[in-house]
């Protein structure tokens, strides 16, 4: 479904040159959920943005649904892959109602039965028709993220790029959104690429994951290994340890 080969992303030139992603390769099968994990600045979000065209592909190949992507991306590409952003407070137009936000992609792609599609999209993400004419300021963070998911799904894409979809939300709402994403994947047969710094989120949603550090791929591992704490790479181990929170080691306890 998705094939990334030796992807490099470079921003700026000369002294300002930053190699955000260096030689990253991975493949994701149809219906699979694939995680990209790493600390801040590891280039995981940049990989996602390079796939959908928000960041430049300096070299390497990105193949989505059997076709290599072009710059600028075609309308077909946008019907195949859609993205959900990190911050639902920033990703919805503040002056547009839910209705307008959802009808925009339909209008761009000339979809006929907009009315029915909007109502169905709202239903899919667990919101009733009563939400249709609300403005973003009348919605909670979790509801906004549901709208953002509905917007991404309304064109019926095959691939969903998720950029830390829960990190801006409360813990209880996080679980709701994750379950919703899990259900939607099964119902609609979607392929996910999930970027997160939260190992628990990735382990919950994804089958396989790629650990990144300083723009490079460190290790690809099944998420079972993460859950059982059996990672081969040292860096992955340290990430797992960090995710378990602060533990007082014995020497400091004695002092």
């Amino acid at each position, binding site marked *: 479904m998705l094939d990334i080969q030796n992807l490099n992303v470079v921003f700026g030139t000369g002294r300002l040159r930053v190699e955000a992603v260096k030689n990253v390769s991975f493949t994701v099968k149809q219906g699979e959920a694939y995680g990209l994990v790493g600390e801040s600045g590891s280039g995981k979000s940049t990989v996602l943005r390079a796939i959908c065209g928000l960041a430049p592909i300096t070299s390497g190949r990105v193949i989505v649904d059997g076709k290599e992507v072009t710059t600028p991306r075609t309308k077909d590409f946008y019907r195949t892959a859609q993205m959900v952003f990190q911050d639902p407070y920033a990703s919805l*137009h503040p002056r547009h*109602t839910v*209705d307008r936000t959802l009808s925009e992609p339909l209008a761009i792609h000339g979809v006929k039965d907009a009315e029915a599609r909007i109502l169905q999209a709202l239903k899919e993400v667990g919101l009733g028709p009563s939400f249709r*004419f609300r403005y973003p300021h009348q919605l909670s963070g979790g509801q906004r993220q549901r709208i953002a998911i509905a917007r991404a799904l309304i064109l019926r894409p095959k691939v969903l790029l998720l950029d830390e979809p829960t990190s801006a939300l409360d813990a209880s709402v996080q679980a709701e959104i994750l379950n919703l994403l899990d259900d939607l994947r099964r119902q609609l047969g979607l392929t996910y690429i999930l970027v997160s710094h939260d190992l628990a989120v990735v382990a919950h949603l994804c089958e396989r994951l790629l650990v990144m550090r300083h723009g490079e791929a460190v290790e690809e591992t099944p998420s079972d290994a993460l859950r059982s704490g059996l990672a081969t790479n040292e860096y992955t181990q340290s990430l797992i340890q960090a995710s378990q929170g602060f533990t007082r080691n014995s020497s400091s306890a004695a002092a």
Partner: protein
Amino acid sequence: MAGSPTVSQSAGLRAWLLSSEPGSRWQARLGRAYLGWRSFSRNPLAVLGLGIVILLIFVALFADFIAPYSPIVGGDLRTQRLLPPSETYWLGTDDQARDILSRIIYGSRITLFVIVLVSIIATPIGLLVGTLSGYLGGWVDTVLMRITDIFLAFPRLVLALAFVAALGPGIENAVIAIAITSWPPYARIARAETLMIRNSDFIAAVKLQGASTPRIIFGHVVPLCLSSVIVRVTLDMAGIILTAAGLGFLGLGAQPPSPEWGAMVATGRNYLIDQWWVAAMPGIAIFVVSLGFNLLGDGLRDVLDPKAAK
């Protein structure tokens, strides 16, 4: 306030407007407008400004019915010249024995004409130049902003003078001259707003839906820039009125006998000591309308531009 049925009815209307689950596009829009009006009407000075502007529009529309005398044809030059304010002539008469009140009432049409025309010409130009330059960036930005700088460097009144000198005096030429010099600030504001908006996630989201650049600019960027530009235009209205009056005063705007307020002040100059009302009355009219637009602009800023509010 009123009888109980009215109260319950208005309460029902308010609930409908403030409903958190609007049933239609219109209800959502009206609800938003109502919220804006509520915060606007909390500011009494802004409401006063709005009142003055509405009064100006009303007077201009119905000048034929309101004005007691003709604004052009005066009375008896021997007996009715330069009369002080009285019951027959509320604001007195001028040197041509014309009723000053009627002239001010008809003059409101010219003022309104200037304001409307300048804002219709300057606002879209400024908005378009600003959003295009901010959103597209690169060489488009450089070229458009340098052009803006050039226009910004023209002194407004001097350019208007040159323009009027070249094309001949008249209110239309004055309007064109004012419009040409007043769009650059709007372009600057629109560009600054666009620069903030263009990197936000909701613009990235609509880009990822495959939206074309014109669609993004006109459907998503312009509506967000519009409010701050409208505020600025309203605040500039006072300056526009003063410039138009200034051109009239210099004899380069509306030509006699048309009752332009600036030209009326200019005639009154000759009688300033003994017949003060000839210059003072149109001067007060200019002052009140300018003040009205300033108050309205301030109120609008508090509603439309929450960042600038205290």
